């Protein structure tokens, strides 16, 4: 569990990026911060592994204030995946994945063996292990980034718009891969995105932020969809239009689901309830 208590961050240039932010991030769930650029979501994320130090307030991981912890050691036990993968271009894929174990002093052979297993885990062929990151496609690089984030088997995985720079098809593939991984691995995932669809798809808890790290609404995707806290949220999630404002029309003896423009989005299937989880798209 990660707990923010009245956390503020003022940068040296005077900008107040985050003000009085309090939130509990539950363990083994995916929490997604979503908001427009400059809402402070990345700043909040980076305060967890102390890439950025908070100005006031406290941040606790499992009841332990992180301000008392050694930054370098703290970071080694928190996985981190970023946009554009951030892979080390001078190291082969296998060494990139093994980065943190190697830093922790794990023997090279052992670290490499584990790295190869992780390539399997993220759905990459082992034959890519000896390539350099630049020889991989964008989607493959992101997968390596995820494998690297998981290498030290951290409890917490921070993901800063990890799929922001890949094309929509690959993004969808990576998102579903992450859902599968999360089902297997059960990490505490903190995910940052500006894409509300991605937030609803991945998040158990979705936190909608406004400038200054102000929480406009938090809750499960269903809660937010069914009861947007205000007009801003309704507008942000597009609750009043397009594919989120669906209605049913009976045609030729079947229930057709139409969007706000009257375009067919699908048909209602008898008895199909799915898993009961929210699947908004």
């Amino acid at each position, binding site marked *: 569990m990660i707990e923010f208590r009245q956390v503020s961050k003022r940068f040296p240039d005077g900008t107040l990026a985050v003000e009085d932010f309090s939130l509990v991030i539950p363990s083994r769930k995916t929490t997604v911060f979503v908001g427009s650029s400059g809402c402070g979501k990345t700043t909040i994320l980076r305060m967890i592994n102390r890439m950025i130090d908070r100005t006031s307030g406290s941040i606790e991981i499992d009841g332990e204030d992180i301000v008392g912890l050694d930054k370098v050691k703290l970071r080694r036990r928190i996985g*981190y995946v970023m946009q554009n993968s951030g892979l080390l*271009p001078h190291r082969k894929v296998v060494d990139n994945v093994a980065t943190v174990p190697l830093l922790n002093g794990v023997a090279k052979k052992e670290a490499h063996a584990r790295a190869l297993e992780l390539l399997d885990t993220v759905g990459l062929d082992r034959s890519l292990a000896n390539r350099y990151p*630049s020889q991989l496609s964008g989607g493959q690089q992101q997968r390596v980034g995820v494998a690297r984030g998981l290498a030290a088997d951290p409890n917490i995985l921070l993901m800063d718009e990890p799929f922001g720079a890949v094309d929509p098809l690959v993004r969808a593939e990576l998102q579903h891969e992450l859902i599968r991984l999360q089902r297997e691995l059960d990490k505490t995932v903190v995910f940052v995105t500006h894409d509300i669809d991605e937030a609803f798809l991945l998040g158990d808890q979705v936190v909608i932020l406004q400038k200054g790290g102000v929480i406009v609404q938090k809750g499960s995707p269903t809660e937010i969809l069914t009861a947007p806290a205000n007009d801003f949220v309704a507008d942000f999630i597009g609750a009043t239009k397009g594919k989120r404002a669906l209605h049913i029309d009976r045609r030729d003896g079947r229930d057709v689901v139409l969007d706000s423009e009257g375009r067919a989005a699908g048909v209602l299937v008898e008895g199909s309830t799915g898993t009961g989880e929210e699947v908004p798209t």
Partner: protein
Amino acid sequence: MNWVIENLPLIGQRTLEHLALSIPPIVLSFVLSVPLGWVANRYRLSRGVLLTVLGLLYAIPSLPLLIVLPIILGTGARDSINVVVALTLYGIALMVRTTSDALGSVSSDISQSATAMGFSPWTRFWKVDLPLAGPVLLAGIRVVAVSTVSLVTVGAVLGIKSLGLLFTDGLQRNIVAEVLAGMVATIALALLIDAALVLLGRLLMPWARATRTSSTRRSRLTAEAAAS
């Protein structure tokens, strides 16, 4: 041509002496430029001052420098240390700016991700920043190497042994072949060291040839700009 054939052992010996005078300044200017370039890149204030002052070293004429250095260092006028010190100063003048630019060319995304992985600042410098600066550093040290090999000859005016002695001796005794042989051998030595550096670069940085990203292309441009 006869002169060359008859004096092959002498040319060989002068070449070795020349090499022995060239290698230390090349290595020293590389090694010393790393901390200086780091400081210049790290602290904005020091950058302008440091790079300007060190860059101006190159403006000191070499002959007077070789005459003044023994007085400052307390060495003999024909001591090879003078040449090594003088050429190291010139090497630093060329190399510090390149080193600073090379370290500055490392993408902040990569630096940040390395920090997020848990590299300490010290480890990050040696294992991430410096290796990634490698291609630009190589471009810089190649310029230093060629310049050093060429400048070593100046020491001959003071009687310090190198291929330059073939120039002075050839001029005094009016042997054109000797002067030409000195020039050809100097150029050949420069090319040889340059080729060795390129080879070393390929061995140490196999990734650089695999990586043709925009960032290295950008840094290569920086290096060329710094070298010209």
